[in-house]
């Protein structure tokens, strides 16, 4: 469990010891998994055994990578160095040849990167979804709406506080896309740009009594320590689609291309897809991600 505000125990439902127990169990499961795998069939020794994975903070903050990576490292012998940053920086890292493989969720920007030839082998891995959260008193009156754009229009028109990531992350880009659809340029006292990660932005939104657009995983991980509640969900435009991409070795010969390919294949393998589909159920009663291996964006209802 990765949660930077963990020191603040306002939660009444779950006692702290319960969290520790979960943590201990998770550690035992993770260590025993990798342990048995290693003893049964020793991992191969690749020539370049390091892969740099540039990914979004959401995969890291939700704990998904910590859940999956030990398996991959045990099977393949690769050591994965995860750089969890905003999507903007992740894409920039690929463009500069500073990463080997990408796991991100900004389809338009991804396609642009592929178009420029910096990334290849773009494949759909999974999706989760965005939700609009807000204070329980819901001053903009958006609870239960099914259209994200309608909800955001009401937030703007009621001058309710809205927290924007403002950091060119996938989430931020998603939000900007909604404003573009509405033909509005948000601004004013009600529109705050945090310029920080999702966890910190959720906290600020909660403290300021404002709304924000967040991925469900980060919200679920933080729901104990923020006052905010889910207001809008279910709009197909709120889907958050993760693709894996390999950095093009023709552009940057020094990248670990074989390792990157192995990692992409691992994410799409049936076992891994099943694990993705189960991740989070134990903690939140629902999975955080939906596995989409082999599917296309059209399958998810997106043109």
């Amino acid at each position, binding site marked *: 469990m990765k949660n930077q505000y963990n*020191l603040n125990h306002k939660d009444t439902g779950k006692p702290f010891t319960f969290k520790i127990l979960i943590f201990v169990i998770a550690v035992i499961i993770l260590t025993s998994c990798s342990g048995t795998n290693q003893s049964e069939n020793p991992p191969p020794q690749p020539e370049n055994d390091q892969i740099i994975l540039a990914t979004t903070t959401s995969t890291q903050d939700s704990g998904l990578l910590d859940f999956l990576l030990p398996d991959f490292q045990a099977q393949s012998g690769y050591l994965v160095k995860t750089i969890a940053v905003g999507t903007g920086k992740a894409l920039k890292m690929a463009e500069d040849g500073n990463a080997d493989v990408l796991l991100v969720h900004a389809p338009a920007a991804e396609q642009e990167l592929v178009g420029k030839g910096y990334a290849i082998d773009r494949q759909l891995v999974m999706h989760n979804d965005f939700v609009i959260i807000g204070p329980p008193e819901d001053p903009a009156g958006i609870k239960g709406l099914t259209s994200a754009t309608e909800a955001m229009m009401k937030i703007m028109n009621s001058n309710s506080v809205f927290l924007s990531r403002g950091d060119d992350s996938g989430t931020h880009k998603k939000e900007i896309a909604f404003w573009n659809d509405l033909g509005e340029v948000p601004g004013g006292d009600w529109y705050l*740009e945090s310029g920080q990660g999702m966890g910190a932005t959720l906290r600020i939104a909660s403290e300021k009594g404002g709304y924000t657009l967040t991925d469900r995983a980060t919200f679920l991980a933080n729901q104990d320590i923020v006052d905010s509640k889910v207001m809008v969900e279910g709009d197909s435009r709120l889907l958050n689609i993760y693709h894996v991409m390999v950095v093009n070795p023709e552009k940057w010969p020094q990248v670990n291309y074989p390792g990157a390919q192995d990692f992409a294949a691992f994410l799409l393998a049936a076992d891994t897809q099943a694990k993705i589909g189960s991740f989070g159920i134990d903690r939140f009663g629902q999975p955080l991600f939906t596995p989409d291996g082999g599917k296309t964006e059209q399958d998810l209802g997106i043109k």
Partner: protein
Amino acid sequence: MELLWDGIKEAFFLIVSGDQEIWAITWLTLKVSGVATAISLLIGLPLGTWLALRDFTGRGCLFSFINTGMAFPPVVVGLWVSIFLWRNGPFGDLGLIYTPTAMVIAQIIIATPIVIGLTIAALQQLNPYLRIQLLGLGASRLQATFALWRESRLLLLAALMAGFGSIISEVGASMMVGGNIKDQTRVLTTAIVLETSRGRFTVAIALGFILLLLAYLVNFGLTVVQQRTTRSKDIQ
């Protein structure tokens, strides 16, 4: 290397073009760190003086406590201040979290131990009989203290510079308690973190140069004062 060069050009352009946002961020940075330095001086100078001149049991223990405080990680300070200022925290009702005031509070906590520690060091390098000499010339306790400050003014100025330098370049606490909210609590360091995460490295480098320039100008100003006081004692 090209990136750095672009960054320098961008910095020059941003400064020359008088970019509104950059000026607002720079001004807020100066205001927050300036006010925090001034307040930490108001707290640290008298307290450091008192500790340097008083002899009491547990003094050594207190000194090592202050020395630890001097090296206290800003993010830890940021975390604690946040916990206190969050709406559900003990001072939540004040509504200070994610405001410049919260940043000033955190920066005071970071800079004050530095000012105290360096004030103690500055006064302890004076001859211990100097205070006796001053009192023996009819100084009131306050006059003696002012005279001791005057005698160690170069080191005290260094303490001031160190305090200011530590907080203007600090990012962890400002990020946590300020929230890096655009037009409200975004200062140079948090803006640099943001621009870096956005992949806008030239802007990040440009902001870094502005920060460097700012720190340089403030230190330059203080050094000029320092030099003038050093020289004036030769001329008077």
